[in-house]
């Protein structure tokens, strides 16, 4: 039976919401519990299956159609209160008329006077008033990373749906901060191995958790692709991590890591800084939504 706490951690890992402490706790549980590992693999497989549907291209002419329509549909005019609350004019006039009638009735019948007991309401309303946004609240991104985001390499990543989505994974970005792993991913043998259609099946090998070892290289003596992966110390160490293997298991991710776009990115001296920048992740997330 999977405990609710573990399920919450696994779902959090899937949705990239875990803190560093929670990630460490999950890693510890995964290293100790085959059942937890099985559940993690199940969830990862499900996410891969759902996302295999991928994004759909908007129908051609949608923008033109919308713009043609809006030219015949004027915007509803609104009166805006000082604190940014917008109210339809018709509603406003209706409320004003209703308030006038109520006031007239209360004034006519009032005993005690109508103002009694309204102080608390006014006080509550004043407490509920939100302060205006001040200049200090406006956070602009880290400008030192803006240059990186203007490069052709970043533009190419943005145009590759799979690569862009994959790089949204915080743990992958953390893994790629290793220069050794980035170097491994530029090697031809590893890039060829990542394109092997049978790779996903082979990643189920529990022994990959052992990491870099002579035994693993020996085990895959007859499989050039797997031998290339386990014989590279940095890549073999990355394969020890369940999250890394789960990512490679997702539809198209391994091939995206071996793509020419990724190769150009890996050779870009700005990539390391970009991977460490929250602006990079924010732009990836924003463009996934916007594409």
């Amino acid at each position, binding site marked *: 039976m999977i405990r609710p706490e573990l399920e919450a951690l696994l779902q959090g890992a899937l949705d990239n919401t875990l803190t560093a402490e929670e990630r460490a706790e999950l890693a510890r549980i995964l290293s100790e519990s085959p059942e937890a590992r099985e559940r993690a693999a199940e969830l990862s497989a499900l996410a891969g299956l759902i996302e295999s*549907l991928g994004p759909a291209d908007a129908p051609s002419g949608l923008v033109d159609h919308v713009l043609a329509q809006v030219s015949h549909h004027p915007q509803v005019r609104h009166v805006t209160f000082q604190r940014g609350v917008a109210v339809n004019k018709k509603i406003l006039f209706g409320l004003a008329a209703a308030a006038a009638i109520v006031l007239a009735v209360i004034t006519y019948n009032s005993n005690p006077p109508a103002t009694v007991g309204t102080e608390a309401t006014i006080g509550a309303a004043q407490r509920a008033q939100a302060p205006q946004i001040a200049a200090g609240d406006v956070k602009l991104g880290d400008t030192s990373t803006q240059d990186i985001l203007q490069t052709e390499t970043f533009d190419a990543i943005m145009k590759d749906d799979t690569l862009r989505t994959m790089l949204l994974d915080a743990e992958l970005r953390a893994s790629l901060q290793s220069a050794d792993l980035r170097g491994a991913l530029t090697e031809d043998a590893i890039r060829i191995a990542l394109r092997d259609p049978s790779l996903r099946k082979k990643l189920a090998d529990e022994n990959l958790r052992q990491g870099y070892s002579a035994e693993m290289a020996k085990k895959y003596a007859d499989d050039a692709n797997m031998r290339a992966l386990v014989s590279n110390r940095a890549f073999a160490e990355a394969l020890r991590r369940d999250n890394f293997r789960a990512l490679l298991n997702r539809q198209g991710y391994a091939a995206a890591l071996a793509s020419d776009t990724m190769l150009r990115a890996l050779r870009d001296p700005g990539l390391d800084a970009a991977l460490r920048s929250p602006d990079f992740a924010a732009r990836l997330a924003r463009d996934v939504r916007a594409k």
Partner: protein
Amino acid sequence: MRRVYFSSDSDDLALVRQSLAGQTEAFGALVTRYQRVMYTVALRMLGNAEDAQDATQDAFIKAYQRLATFDPSYRFYSWMYRILVNECLNVNRDRRPDDPLDDDAAGGGTPFDDALAAERRDQINMALLQLSPEYRTVVVLRHFAGQSYGEIAEALAIPEKTVKSRLYSARQRLGELLLGWRERGKDEDR
């Protein structure tokens, strides 16, 4: 709680202001920016390309008409998602149960591979449509729009805790439908 603007949202806000000032081309830029993800969300919500196109277009037109009610302390796309989801739910209510699903898969493999892939996509689409609208909405916004728990909560005006709980239940149900997971009891918001 006071909200904070990030640089990525400021572009949208500028376009909204220009649209309100009568520059329809600015609204065109917003439609261009969001048409793909909005259409994808509609398609996964409805499973039908024609309905998805109608819902996406109607959502943008309603957004334009109501642009003056947009509260700039929220994210524009969260507001758009809310309008779009409501459009999709209205289409769902009007839909005949035997309306066909659309296969939006692109070919490229052998005919046999394409047929297998199309069948698998049909299964996934059908499984999504078997979810209740509440569960389907959070799955679609999370997996196809890349929205965080907080963004989904903002778009649907529900607590983050409810987003998490619906995602858990929805995934569990999808796992049962697609991967044969063992049933873990009746789904309900925790």
